[in-house]
């Protein structure tokens, strides 16, 4: 109902500079809209990527499709979603929320938002909820990816500060990557590292990761650490550094507090190398090598990501890392510091506006009365939340328990991404009011919506995002919004207006919101008031024109940006490693300045005593214990070419080939014990749920440890939501779930048949033929859907082993016309069936079924969908799944009895056969019915004539 029709034709526009919507690297993208397509290239001037894009970014053009988009507001009426006007949808949202708040109080409602919102959307949501609804029940999917980093930063620095820039990354002499497959998850950032090492081979890379990854392949040293033991490792490092006197006493005395206790804990828990090595299951020599390397290298950046954050002791892991940097004073200096790499395009922006349930706004705190007053005055709000709201996991538990009765979910897919995701389903199913703002019509989450609001997608919405190095970049619109899609800040403001808050939410465009946000960051931001590093004072009062022109800028921004004159740290830039290779760094790009000097350079931290804190970290094993029922540790993460729940990357054919199916990667030894074989299907189960995926043995997994990617969901596979398995254990401080460690079991998923189908898509503007395959997937016990170039591929497996394919396949592939050009191969006793539908000489669909996974390669068959006309050779090879090997051409058959061709005969004649009898003796031709003997005679005399002519 809601997807399908195309947006209005787009007139050609000049190139628009914007920012990539995927990972937290935050690459600049240059977009040119052509009549038929959207051309995407790297923004050569952007200080993050200097024109480079990873494969996901480069494929963005392929994702700008109306296919599957949510185009109109819809309201659930008697079970079915019905299209309504924005007005009536917003009326219903406003009144329903109001009613529930009146009946049950502000804490009975909640917002669950996303690091894919723009800062402006985020700001308005946070303001509305904390200032006017009067609850802090607004949390975000950023809770799932870097809240431990936030908590760690706040504990150590008093503020959520990432004290490192990409250039520090490049300028370091040692980069330690902890729990980060940077090569796949932040490819451009990794490229900068690789380039930097090419220039300075002496630069060292250490990777700490239980898995062997594309990243660890590049490392000088790989520590395949036992999952969850990072705190031992870094306590051990701290202790080692201390024992060897690698300590910056001046810095510690001048700018830190709490060393003694932290040191004592480190010594007690990890004081001796051997025990640490044993605890972390590492070679003692390898561990020592890492410690020595760290000890003797002053310029060291320790970059960490989900492997650290997504843990029941994630915050302690972060602080254990920071402790080592504080101990050595390696922070606030070029090429040194702890570096949290974020996973989402605007997780950082969300943190800046305070869009998490335990923050207030603009790096101000809920629990500080002065801060609350400052914000309430600034907002002129009737109320202000005064205690932390529910964090993601607790939030959905509260929905499940009925404590929270209404939730507005924006730009995220909790039914897929949260731990114990089946519980999230149950919770939403009984929730009184579920409002979902999304760009896609059908997501696992929208299935539970009472009200669906069409949000603007990338390329339609307009605002700012902040990347991992605190660099604020514009996301700019370059196509008209699809259907009736509107900005999220608009929808929120409209609800506010219906609540009589028009005065406080008067926004007409994004720049007004950004300006208010900038002013709030500057408000009371001085030593007498509530000082904090986050300060966008220099960006206050930009006005629309300047805002639209705003170039990437790293905060703090105390002065107006360069093009408005002046600027900060803009000079003396060394440029990025990519830049040097491609072009001299643009002077106009402040973010390429040595921004790291700006924070902590003077050793000031905005804790009450202005000192950085050492935080004692007592190591703990992951919450879930392996036992006989669940003997393996499930690790989750990304694959190179997909992102989050595939709502965007799932649309791009070129992203579908690298890893096309959900899989479980495990050690061959464990596979043996679980009696699963590579390429078979396996059920992975935890105490909470299960999924069915393809078995893979990449050789990258340690014993007792399995990996399943996070991306696949009900839109792309029958049963691949790994979230359903993940244990809902969270870090006590940050509330971040333990995605990297869940006890699971793996068992064979028995099926009677394997198969795949390729089916040409309908017109590119959506309405695909998938419908025809519904009966096929319905018939299968397992399926996964793969986007192809103009076609869709389904991988299938089933339990019913009847041989009735011939009778059902035609309908399944939509070849109902009895005159249809329908090719069929059947070996019913072996239960092998193959069929193909040709329409107008073009392949329309094909189906291959076998009792074993030994099906033909999909590659050649897929390539046929690019052809407007199949050649005869293609057609002959079609049901074999491969083109006929080019053997010697026998030529036109002369002797039918023995199938001897003219060319073969001519060769024999040249070889000396002078009579039909001789030919018969050699090739058997003409020796049965003899009807070709005259032709044989003919050929012989012809060739004799030719030979004489030549002579």
């Amino acid at each position: 109902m809601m997807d399908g029709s195309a947006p209005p034709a787009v007139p050609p526009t000049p190139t628009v500079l914007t920012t990539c919507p995927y990972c937290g690297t935050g690459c600049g993208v240059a977009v040119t809209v052509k009549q038929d397509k959207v051309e995407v290239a790297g923004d050569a001037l952007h200080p993050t990527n200097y024109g480079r894009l990873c494969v996901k970014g480069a494929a963005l053009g392929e994702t700008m499709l109306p296919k599957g988009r949510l185009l109109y507001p819809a309201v659930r009426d008697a079970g079915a979603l019905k299209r309504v006007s924005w007005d009536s949808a917003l009326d219903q949202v406003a009144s329903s929320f109001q009613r529930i708040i009146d009946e049950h109080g502000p804490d009975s409602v909640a917002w669950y938002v996303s690091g894919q919102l723009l800062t402006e959307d985020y700001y308005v949501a946070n303001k509305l909820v904390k200032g006017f609804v009067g609850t802090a029940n607004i949390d975000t999917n950023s809770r799932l990816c870097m809240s431990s980093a936030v908590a760690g930063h706040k504990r150590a620095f008093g503020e959520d500060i990432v004290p490192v820039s990409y250039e520090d990354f490049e300028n370091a002499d040692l980069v330690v990557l902890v729990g980060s497959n940077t090569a796949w998850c932040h490819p451009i950032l990794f490229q900068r590292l690789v380039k930097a090492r090419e220039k300075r081979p002496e630069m060292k890379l250490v990777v700490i990761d239980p898995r062997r990854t594309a990243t660890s392949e590049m490392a000088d040293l790989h520590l395949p650490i036992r999952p969850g033991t990072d705190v031992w490792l870094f306590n051990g490092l701290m202790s080692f550094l201390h024992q060897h006197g690698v300590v910056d006493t001046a810095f510690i005395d001048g700018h830190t507090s709490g060393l003694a206790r932290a040191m004592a804990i480190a010594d007690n828990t990890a004081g001796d190398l051997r025990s640490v090595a044993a605890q972390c299951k590492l070679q003692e020599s390898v561990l020592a090598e890492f410690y020595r390397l760290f000890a003797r290298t002053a310029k060291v950046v320790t970059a960490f990501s989900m492997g650290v954050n997504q843990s029941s002791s994630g915050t302690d892991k972060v602080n254990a890392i920071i402790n080592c940097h504080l101990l050595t004073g390696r922070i606030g200096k070029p090429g040194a510091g702890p570096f949290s790499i974020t996973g989402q395009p605007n997780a950082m922006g969300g943190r800046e506006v305070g869009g998490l349930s335990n923050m207030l706004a603009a790096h101000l705190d809920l629990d500080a009365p002065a801060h609350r007053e400052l914000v309430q005055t600034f907002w002129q709000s009737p109320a202000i939340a005064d205690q932390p709201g529910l964090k993601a996991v607790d939030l959905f538990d509260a929905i499940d328990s009925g404590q929270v009765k209404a939730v507005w979910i924006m730009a995220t897919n909790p039914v897929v991404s949260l731990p114990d995701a089946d519980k999230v389903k149950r919770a939403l199913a009984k929730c009184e009011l579920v409002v979902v703002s999304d760009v896609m019509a059908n997501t696992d989450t929208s299935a539970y919506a009472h009200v669906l609001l069409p949000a603007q997608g990338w390329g339609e919405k307009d605002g700012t995002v902040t990347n991992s190095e605190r660099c604020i970049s514009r996301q700019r619109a370059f196509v008209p919004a699809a259907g009736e899609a509107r900005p999220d800040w608009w929808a929120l403001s409209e609800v506010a207006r219906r609540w009589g808050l028009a005065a406080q939410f008067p926004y007409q465009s994004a720049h007004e919101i950004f300006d208010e946000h900038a002013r709030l960051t500057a408000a009371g931001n001085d030593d007498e008031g509530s000082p904090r590093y986050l300060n966008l004072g220099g960006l206050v009062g930009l006005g629309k024109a300047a805002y639209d022109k705003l170039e990437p800028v790293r905060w703090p921004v105390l002065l107006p940006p360069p093009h408005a004159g002046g600027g900060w740290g803009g000079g003396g830039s060394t440029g990025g490693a990519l830049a040097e290779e491609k072009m001299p760094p643009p002077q106009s790009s402040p973010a390429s300045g040595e921004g790291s000097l700006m924070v902590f350079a003077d050793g000031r931290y905005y804790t009450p005593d202005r000192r950085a804190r050492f935080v004692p970290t007592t190591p703990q094993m992951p919450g879930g214990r392996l036992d006989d029922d669940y003997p393996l540790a499930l690790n989750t993460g990304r694959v190179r070419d997909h992102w989050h729940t595939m709502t965007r990357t799932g649309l791009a054919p070129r992203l579908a080939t690298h890893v096309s199916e959900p899989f479980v990667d495990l050690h061959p030894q464990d596979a043996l014990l679980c009696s699963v074989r590579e390429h078979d299907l396996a059920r992975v189960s935890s105490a909470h749920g299960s999924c069915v995926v393809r078995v893979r043995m990449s050789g990258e997994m340690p014993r007792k440890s399995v990996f399943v990617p996070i991306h696949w969901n009900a839109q792309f596979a029958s049963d691949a939501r790994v979230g359903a398995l993940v244990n809902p254990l969270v870090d006590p401080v940050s509330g971040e779930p333990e995605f990297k460690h869940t006890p699971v079991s793996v068992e064979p998923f028995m099926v009677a048949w394997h198969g795949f189908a390729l089916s040409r898509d309908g017109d590119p503007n959506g309405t695909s033929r998938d419908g025809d395959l519904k009966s096929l997937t319905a018939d299968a016990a397992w399926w996964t859907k793969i986007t192809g170039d103009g076609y869709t591929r389904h991988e299938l497996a089933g339990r019913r082993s009847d041989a009735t394919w011939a009778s059902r396949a035609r309908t399944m592939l939509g070849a109902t016309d009895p005159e249809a050009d329908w090719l069929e191969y059947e070996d019913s006793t072996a239960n092998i069936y193959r069929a193909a539908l040709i329409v107008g000489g073009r392949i329309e669909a094909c189906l291959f079924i076998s009792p074993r996974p030994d099906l033909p390669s999909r590659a050649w068959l897929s390539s046929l969908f690019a052809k407007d006309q199949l050649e005869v050779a293609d057609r002959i090879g079609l049901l074999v799944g491969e083109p006929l090997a080019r053997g010697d051409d026998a030529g036109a058959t002369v002797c039918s009895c023995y199938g001897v061709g003219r060319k073969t005969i001519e060769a024999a004649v040249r070889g000396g056969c002078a009579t039909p009898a001789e030919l018969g003796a050699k090739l058997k031709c003409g020796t049965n019915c003899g009807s070709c003997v005259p032709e044989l005679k003919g050929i012989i005399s012809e060739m004799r004539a030719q030979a004489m002519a030549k002579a």
Partner: protein
Amino acid sequence: MSGIRTVEELLKLEPEAFDITVFGAEPHGNYNRILLSPVLAGEKRFEDIVTHDRAWYARNGISLHTGDVVTAIDRRRRVVVAASGLEVPYDRLLIATGSRPFVIPVPGHTLPGVIAFRDIHDVESMLTAARDHRHAVVIGGGLLGLEAASGLLRQGMNVSVVHVNDSLMERQLDKPAAKLLKAALEKRGMRFLLEANTAEIVGSERVTSIKFKDGGEIVADLVVMAVGIRPNIELAKAAGLHVERAIVVDDSLQTLSDPRIYAVGECVQHRKNVYGLVAPLWEQAKVCAAHLAGLGHRRYSGSVTATRLKVTGIDLYSAGDFIGDKDSEDLVLRDPGRGVYKRLVLKGGCIVGVVLYGEVGDGPWYFELMQKRVDISALRQRLLFGRGYCEPQAA
């Protein structure tokens, strides 16, 4: 044909072993009967299909008596007696009297314009009829009938094929293939009356129509009977040789009753089988010659036969048990778009039957696999897609 082929083989082995005398009922040297259809279709001339002219007999010192029929064999005196009264003695006698077409004894079957399709004379009378008549009816939708029918079609006649069964060439084709064949021939203008039982051939001085048991009737001024053949066994019977459906021979093609007398071709019955196709005849000839030459190094153990229709533009190949039973397994490939239908019948990992329509190039290969009882299990997945996919270099 089988007789002369035997003589040829014999000459290869032991040119000097015998003085050879050949009697032939037809008034000329012999020719390749298989190729009568192309002659009828106008694709070949009689000269093209002559295999042995009188010169050949002369060269090989064989005395040939054409147009003279042997009327009796005196086994006691070891002489054959010809219609001309000529008597020729023998040490070894080879009977290759072949077969004659079976003519349904319905009323009017002797009318002028009613003929069989057996020898060059029949072909000539068909060609004549084609010149001054228009409506031909072929009774019999088997191999021979369809070849005759399409020949007459090529000669410009309106041709109807009358078949008692509900599907053409039921002894060589399964129903799907027969359907395709029928459709292809209909496209060329041939008409078919299936499950039609001829009741009477009507006409006074020449056939004018055919009546059926169900009361139907169609115009006909030429009727070709092609409903099967009967071995010529009267001579052998009269000579007191053991005869069942045909002259019974052993694996050396020697008659059971008289060690001096051999028989080959369509007139013999070997292990309960009587063959009407050419391949077995050649095999018999080879074996028989070996024994006549006194070498005895060969043995005939029966033939598996393969059939193809000699109708230009229609590719069709059939061999073995193409129907199968409850223990057999089927591989089927349908590509109506290319007019291709292929079916292999498997049993115990071996091919036991083949039906190919539209694309027959691999027929002989399948036939070979079938005869040699090759276990095809390893090839099974690709087998039906052809030799090119099973052994690429052989393509």
